[in-house]
């Protein structure tokens, strides 16, 4: 539209002098030329730049927040190389009464068959977390760190341990083997050894 104003005055330099004297009114066409007007000078330009700034900053901070959250999530492993919590320990008939089986000690399990019940003890000492040893001659679990002693049932009777050893959940799976579930544990002092889930009756 500014071209229209220019088209009326083909000659550049004499144009203002020639156009001005005959008629004054045509002047208002001049302001249409927006050479000096920046985007922020008009109302539309003002709202345009505000919107652009808002979108820009919001997307910037949103991407920053998303990246921070994503990075935090990145640091949590999705796949673990750790052994699973459920451990198959074999046929119940393979366990002798009055015996402590130490085969699964590296999985933090003692399998004990005692007075017609099979239960799985947690090998962690309840004092400071060391691993006690089963002393067959003395019929007790003895912790080498501070001397805590436990009966074959897991009940503490000497040393600094404040409470009995914990028991893992145990159940018979469909294939007839016992399965120890280390995601659930049962504590004597809380009355949880009453639960059917922490022993298997032979």
């Amino acid at each position, binding site marked *: 539209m500014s071209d229209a104003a220019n088209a009326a005055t083909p000659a550049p330099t004499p144009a203002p002098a020639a156009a001005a004297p005959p008629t004054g009114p045509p002047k208002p066409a001049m302001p249409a030329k927006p050479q000096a007007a920046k985007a922020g000078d008009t109302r539309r330009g003002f709202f345009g730049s505000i919107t652009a700034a808002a979108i820009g900053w919001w997307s910037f901070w949103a991407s920053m927040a998303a990246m921070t959250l*994503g*990075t935090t999530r*990145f*640091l949590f492993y*999705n*796949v673990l190389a750790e052994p699973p919590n459920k451990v198959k320990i074999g046929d119940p008939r393979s366990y002798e009464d009055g015996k402590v089986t130490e085969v699964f000690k590296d999985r933090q399990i003692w399998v004990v068959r005692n007075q017609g019940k099979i239960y799985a003890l947690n090998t962690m000492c309840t004092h400071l977390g060391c691993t006690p040893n089963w002393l067959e001659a003395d019929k007790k679990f003895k912790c080498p760190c501070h001397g805590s002693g436990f009966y074959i049932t897991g009940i503490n009777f000497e040393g600094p341990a404040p409470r009995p050893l914990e028991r893992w959940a145990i159940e018979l799976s469909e294939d007839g083997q016992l399965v120890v579930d280390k995601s659930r544990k049962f504590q004597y002092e809380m009355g949880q050894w009453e639960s059917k889930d922490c022993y298997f009756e032979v």
Partner: protein
Amino acid sequence: MSVGDWIKTSQVWKSIFRHPAPRDRRNRVVVMLTNVFLHLHPVSVRKSGIALSYTWCMGGLTFFLFLVETVTGVLLMFYYRPTLEHAYNDILALRDVVTLGILREIHRWGAHAMVISIWLHMYRVFLTGSYKPPREFNWGVGVILLVLTLLLSFTGYLLPWDQLAIWAITVGSNMARATPFLGHEGPGAALLNVGGVPLIHSGSDARFLLLGGKFVSGETLLRFYVLHCVAIPLAVAVLIAIHFWRVRKDGGISGAL
């Protein structure tokens, strides 16, 4: 007293920030001078000097990419193990198993972009004559930084431990055979011998030192990993600090002196 005032008058705030907000000329200067990071930067720069059409911001972009590579690289180090048994699988896991697997892609593309931007930075410095005295020392620092950036790319290239990586490093490191005097196939190497027994042979030359063996192996992987993650980045960080500091000392960002 508003919460903002309460924070700004607290001992914690004042122990960190010694000066008021940089709203006037004096405080803008002291804030720059009393901050360990900002003091590397000139207190003031010429308006013409920071025009995008003049600097292309390629130096700043290269620095930004270095920071991106550092941050993403540290994150990748939590998952990557530089051993023959694990390296390749860890790279696959970084793509397929880990949440936000794009981090390795950011690291890889960032590395490509950094090589491009540092070349363009050097090109710009050449075009604007910014290597001339008193900036010739900083040009030298910049050339070392360029070489170290290329070495970062080279050492990082081996880490995925796929066929591409192994053969690229095999071919690339063969150049070290031809190092003058220090490569066993290089000029002058034959001169270094004691009574006819060569000092420089395939088990004692520059390539052997670089690879930790006569061919690319698990020792090479470990060696390149340490170079890539620790040795070269440390050298680069120190040289970047010198580079920025010398920009300030040599009369600010380039322009007519």
